[in-house]
């Protein structure tokens, strides 16, 4: 069964066309990540699914039912917001229980579900505190707890980790992944961070300017991007695009090589000068200006003695490279 099905969904704010013909299916139990640069419409799409914005056209089905005119509370969804959005005047417990109370669930059901969620998220000792007395990470867990207790058909996450610091972000990311395994629930997760997308998703949806650019598993998108935008968006450091530096490349075409597929070799195809070195311990990133004036990143595994100003030759395996035409679309026959 499909948890969510979008058919030709469009959304306009006045003359601004934000979402353009979105078609998408989310299977039961699937973790889907919407990713894209800011302003691409990913949050709007999530709000349309939640019912916080009406779609201008198209149909939205959740669990098989058309929900276009169903209010958010009755869609069987729960949402976690970037700013946590906890009710400031309620305790942690009441924050989590409010949705169920509004549904008219009996008190013992509310209590049981809230206790279960608090236990799962390790929030039991904070039950009587107010949001203002909690740290950022705890607040986000309360927000997640508020979503869990409703036992929704579909979880929606709107950039839930953006307000957390780096260490906490990593921990919470792992917690969300574990939560997904435990609950086996369908989840949609919006982020602009490609690491979150790669690590959490069963399926990534890359959006640009209100259109879906490509849908696929993280490794599919990494190994087989449909166009230059997707290729550049996933992977860190991002892919190098060269037009002039590689000998034998037809005019108008661009070659894309991931930094990790480049290496220092005596017989390398590209000649250049190191302009900057980033030593990360495990990796060393070299910024190289090629003889033709293009800048590229070379990612070397382990530590490397190369210094700024060194002249180096960089080589790559043509099988690992991607070719794009002038319209930035992938040219498939030349690959591999």
């Amino acid at each position, binding site marked *: 069964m499909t948890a969510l099905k979008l058919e030709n969904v469009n959304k306009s704010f006045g003359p601004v066309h934000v979402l353009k013909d979105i078609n998408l299916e989310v299977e039961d139990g699937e973790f889907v990540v919407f990713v894209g640069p800011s302003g691409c419409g990913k949050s709007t799409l999530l*709000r349309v699914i*939640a*019912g*916080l914005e009406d779609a201008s056209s198209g149909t939205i089905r959740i669990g098989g039912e058309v929900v276009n005119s169903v*209010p*958010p*509370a*009755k869609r069987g*969804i*729960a*949402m976690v*917001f*970037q*700013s*946590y*959005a*906890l*009710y*400031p*005047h309620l305790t942690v417990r009441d924050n989590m229980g*409010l*949705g169920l109370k*509004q*549904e008219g669930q009996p008190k013992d059901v509310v209590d049981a579900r809230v206790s279960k969620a608090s236990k799962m998220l390790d929030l039991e000792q904070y039950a009587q505190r107010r949001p203002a007395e909690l740290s950022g990470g705890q607040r986000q867990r309360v927000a997640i707890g*508020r979503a869990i207790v409703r036992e929704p058909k579909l979880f929606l996450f*709107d950039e839930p980790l953006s307000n957390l610091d780096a260490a906490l972000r990593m921990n919470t990311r792992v917690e969300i992944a574990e939560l997904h395994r435990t609950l086996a629930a369908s989840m949609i997760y919006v982020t602009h961070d490609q690491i979150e997308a790669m690590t959490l998703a069963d399926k990534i949806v890359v959006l640009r300017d209100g259109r879906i650019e490509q849908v696929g598993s993280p490794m599919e998108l990494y190994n087989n991007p449909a166009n230059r935008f997707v290729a550049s968006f996933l992977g860190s450091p991002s892919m190098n695009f060269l037009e002039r530096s590689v000998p034998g490349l037809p005019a108008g075409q661009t070659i894309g090589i991931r930094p990790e597929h480049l290496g220092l070799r005596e017989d390398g195809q590209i000649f250049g000068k190191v302009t900057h070195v980033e030593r990360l311990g495990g990796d060393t990133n070299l910024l190289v200006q090629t003889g033709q004036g293009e800048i590229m990143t070379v990612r070397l595994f382990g530590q490397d003695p190369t210094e700024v100003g060194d002249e180096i030759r960089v080589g790559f395996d043509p099988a690992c490279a991607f070719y794009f035409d002038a319209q930035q679309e992938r040219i498939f026959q030349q690959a591999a």
Partner: protein
Amino acid sequence: MTKARSSLSTKTTMHAVLIVYTIIALFPVFVILINSFKSRRAIFRDPLGLPNEETFSLIGYQTVLKQGDFFLYFQNSMIVTVVSLALILLFGAMAAFALAEYRFKGNTLMGLYLALGIMIPIRIGTVAILEMMVSTGLVNTLTALILVYTAQGLPLAVFILSEFMKGVSDDLKNAGRIDGLSEYKIFFRLVLPLVRPAMATVAVFNMIPIWNDLWFPLILAPAEEVKTLTLGSQVFIGQFVTDWNAVLSALSMAILPVMILYVIFSRQLIRGITSGAVK
């Protein structure tokens, strides 16, 4: 305070300026208060002197309490002020919520239209208002005053509150919607508590002019049983003879309720006024 941010001299100057200003602002109130406790002769002989054994007199308060229905006036003023404030806050906040929260055609235009009331004094329409009140039979009722004061207070209330409501996080309101709260509950339970400082600001800004107003009570409700305190105090001011003891005593007593309300609201008020600048 750390040394880096303030030196002794700037601090002294700052306080000196503030103290001078406080003295200037409080001086008239002080003069009213001391003179209300003096005999008539002492008021004229030495208007700035403190009451002493010789000049101390409660004659003014006695006159006020004996003559006229001072408590009735007091009650009228209280009813008019409190009901008007309640209506201004309720309707002002509701209109502000609609303007801040919902996208509809003419939203900006509506906001501007409501703000227009800030720039046009309501007293320009006094004749029309009086005619309206006469034809609806509301002359000489407290309702007339309440309606006028509500209309007078709404523009500023809507203007201030809608700015504050735009600042309430959208996510919070959306979280409420997903949890199944109705728009009314979102308004009363989530948004109103968060704009409480702004509400206090609006309340204080509206309270004082309403309490002190002489114009509309004089025109719309001059009858004995609906007189407000300010209007009631006027009986002691005659064209040829003025009972200064009584006037000063009445005014001193009229200050009290406003002061009490101000003390209640002041913490919220200060937060309301400064939150825009500091945060």
